[in-house]
């Protein structure tokens, strides 16, 4: 299939008028990606590979969780870390892998939010692994300026949960 310049312009016009922010078309070798917002991140996976799997809904034995998207840590991390470094912020990182909770129990107010003052020993969240809840300490004194991780999200070891201004 061949696309003329006119076809492409037509596609762009249709996208522009639509509600969609992002559009991708693949026909054989031909591939068009259009985005109204930020540049489309290039996938790091080789093109022959199926797209990175999204998380399945958690096993039925788990308590219901917000439908958090699969964390694609490798691609987001540099952005958060770059921001932290540029603005002199300190990331609070997950001390282990598991499910991250921002509050001591469902419905309770979160341990911290944007603007909260924290010290090294302040508990800022819980990470659950195999039904065992481990508290996460801030390990830095300052003010929370950004909540990076989402409640109920599966986080990996070393993933940034909060940014704190010391």
């Amino acid at each position: 299939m061949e696309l003329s310049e006119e076809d492409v312009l037509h596609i762009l016009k249709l996208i522009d008028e639509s509600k969609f922010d992002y559009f991708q078309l693949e026909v054989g070798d031909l591939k068009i990606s259009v985005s109204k917002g930020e540049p489309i991140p290039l996938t790091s996976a080789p093109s022959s590979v199926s797209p990175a799997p999204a998380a399945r809904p958690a096993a039925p034995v788990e308590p219901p969780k917000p439908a958090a998207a699969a964390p694609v840590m490798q691609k987001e991390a540099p952005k958060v870390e770059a921001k932290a470094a540029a603005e002199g912020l300190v990331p609070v990182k997950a001390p282990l892998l598991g499910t991250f909770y921002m509050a001591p129990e469902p419905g309770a107010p979160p341990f911290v939010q944007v603007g909260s003052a924290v010290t090294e020993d302040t508990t800022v969240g819980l990470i659950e692994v195999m039904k065992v809840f481990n508290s996460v300490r801030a390990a830095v004194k300052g003010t929370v300026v950004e909540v990076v991780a989402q409640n109920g999200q599966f986080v990996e070891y070393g993933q940034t949960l909060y940014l704190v201004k010391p």
Partner: protein
Amino acid sequence: MSVTRVLVANRGEIAVRIIKACRSLGIETVTAVSEADRGSLAAKLADRSICIGPPRSTDSYLKVESLVAAAVGTGCDALHPGYGFLAERADLARACADHNITFVGPTAENIKKMGDKLEARRIATAAGVPTVPGSDHAKNPHEAGALAEEIGYPVLLKASAGGGGRGIKLIWNGSEIETTFRTAAAEARAAFGDDTLYMERYVGNARHIEIQVLGDLHGNVVHLGERDCSLQRRHQKIIEEAPAYALSPAVRAKIGEAAATLARSIGYRNAGTIEFIYDNDTEEFFFLEMNTRIQVEHPITEMITGIDIVAQQLLIAGGQALPFKQADIAFSGHAIECRINAESPQHGFRPCPGLITHWEAPEGNGVRLDTHCFPGYVVPPYYDSLLGKLIVHGADRHQAAARTENALAAFRVEGIDTGIPFLHTVITDPEYLRGNVNTRWLEKKLEQYAAAINA
């Protein structure tokens, strides 16, 4: 229970091997990595990687709960443990079952039974498989002396809690029994907190022969022939071969059947290896132990049978029946595997982690390399030193050895030291080429090698 997404709970070359097998079957992969392995080849090849902890393996690859949580959290329906780390831990198999994750390996029960040395010995005896003549328990020097007379000198006195070659004493005659028994018991108490000793006949001129088995969930068990792993350094295999060229056809048939019978007797599932000690002088073989996992040296069996063992592991775990019967399994040619380690032969084989500045792998007919290394890769200091396995197939042992020699000569690694120069001297040794070796041969060769370097 079909397997659609696998958590690779391992690292290094076996993680890469598992990912490739999954891909050949259209199965997605998530590889678990420690912080030190974020940039590993497995992490690059897998559909996704997930960091499970800091570099130290006790905080990452050895944490059952982190691996199971990683599998559940990334939506995997199966977990492959590879070899080493948690591969033979029944609690991992059990934790997977508790979370509806298919463990790509044997049942927790299989692992538990075969993990206990004395229990495994009893199971073998019950299945009619010969074990090394000896006793379950030698309680005191007097009893040990009587047992030794019965078995015939020389004998080995072994610590029940020992393993991997530790806690073993060789006794040549009755005059040594008293002193050696007391020393062995004291050492076992100090090293393992358990002074239970047992005795075995010492086979001086021995080969290490092992049989690959596969069992499915429907009760079918086949063996894929033998491997000769006699060339060992400090109980670590260095060069392995398939088939076991020193065995007569009659012994080959008997040892394969013994292994399959033993596996069948415990309802063994998935891939496993049954190790035997073979007496070169008497042509007897004795059960040593069973490894309830995929083994490092599995590719040589793949080369002579054409069967992808890791793919079979995944299919078996998914509930499929074995696609072949014992009579369908044919053997072709000879295969040799050399383990390429990051070590320095000229400095007593000390481990040699660091940056690989140049990596030029050999190619050619019958040459296969299973590795996770690439130019620019930094070999981390936290894990074992295996860089890869050079696996070479030929029409016969002579051709396989000649091709191995060429491949080793063409293998260029710079930045770190490797065992390649030593492997080359072994593979070109006239005694080795005549097949005139036993389990002590390589140690002797090492002494000569060290002497030549220091000369």
